[in-house]
């Protein structure tokens, strides 16, 4: 199983990226609501994480990586490869 860290950290970082992407109305955005709903539905009720929780956590971490990398890539593109 991949080394992912605490699900809560991933969730918080992911929500932060979504806020950045969506702007002012981020709380109403489908992605924000979906991610929150998914994490609530798979809330940790026992010490042992079930397979579905692990899958969700991995998906969230992957999506976080996507959003973060796109943002960083765009910033670098603007800084070094943009036109004027």
């Amino acid at each position, binding site marked *: *199983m*991949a*080394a*992912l860290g605490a699900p809560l950290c991933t969730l918080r970082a992911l929500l932060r990226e*979504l806020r950045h*992407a*969506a702007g002012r109305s981020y709380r109403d*955005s*489908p*992605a924000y609501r*979906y991610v929150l*709903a*998914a994490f*609530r*539905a798979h809330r940790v009720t026992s010490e042992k994480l079930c397979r*579905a929780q*692990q*899958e969700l956590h*991995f*998906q969230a*971490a*992957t*999506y976080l*990586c*996507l959003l*973060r*990398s*796109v943002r*960083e*890539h*765009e910033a*670098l*593109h603007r*800084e*070094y*490869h943009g036109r004027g």
Partner: protein
Amino acid sequence: LWARSLPARLPRPPPAAAGSGPLGPCGRRAYAPPGERKRFYQNVSISQGEGGFEINLDHRKLKTPQAKLFTVPSEALAIAVATEWDSQKDTIKFYTMHLTTLCNTALDNPTQRNKTQLIRAAVKFLETDTICYRVEEPPALAELQKNEWDPVVTWAEKRYNVTIGSSTSILGPNIPASTKETFVNHLASYNMWALQGIEFVITQLKSLILSMGLIDRHITVEKAVLLSRLEEEYQIRRWGNVEWAHDYDLCELRARTAAGTLFVHLCSESSTVKHKLLQD
């Protein structure tokens, strides 16, 4: 050695499958994007049609570059695509919209490949798999490759009950036919959409094994990308980082790999999970 650390040219052009425009027909135009375009819509929303989930830009339905209706089988994927469109500011930067690109490729299949051909292309990569190709010089790099790549090869061999190995020969490792067959059979269990995603990830990472590590959730995207770029990372640590080249390539590879991985998982997720979430 500096030359090796710098890119030979400016950043790659946008991916070929991004589409020349979301709404109109593309006629005889090549399957290539304009790069950027002004944002022409206010609201992005999702709706459920007969074929799956659709994306609406204001009142217009999103179409693929080949003018097919843009429909995806997974609600989560539709939401992620809608988020890509909604996060565009003044201009639409198609080269950042990796999930949209992947969906367009799955819907249009511009290279006209069937499942068998896709699987064959994917498994063929095993013969030139990055993590099976080892150097002998410099010793520090050889050691790094051994320490970082051996565990993943071992994991794959155990997980799939195959022999892979590694090689310092220019011809690469000798992959037994039975190993290839195992992977062919395994990949056959994925649907066409997921396979497009898998093949995409493999071409990005230049490694079938690293891609399977991702698909099987054995390693994270960040780790997979690091392992794929091991030699570059080694050179960067020795000779220094060039932000506008190295970080640029790193972020782009991470973004594409993450998109591909997410795409595969969302296209092959179980219906029970989907049903439970849709109940909210």
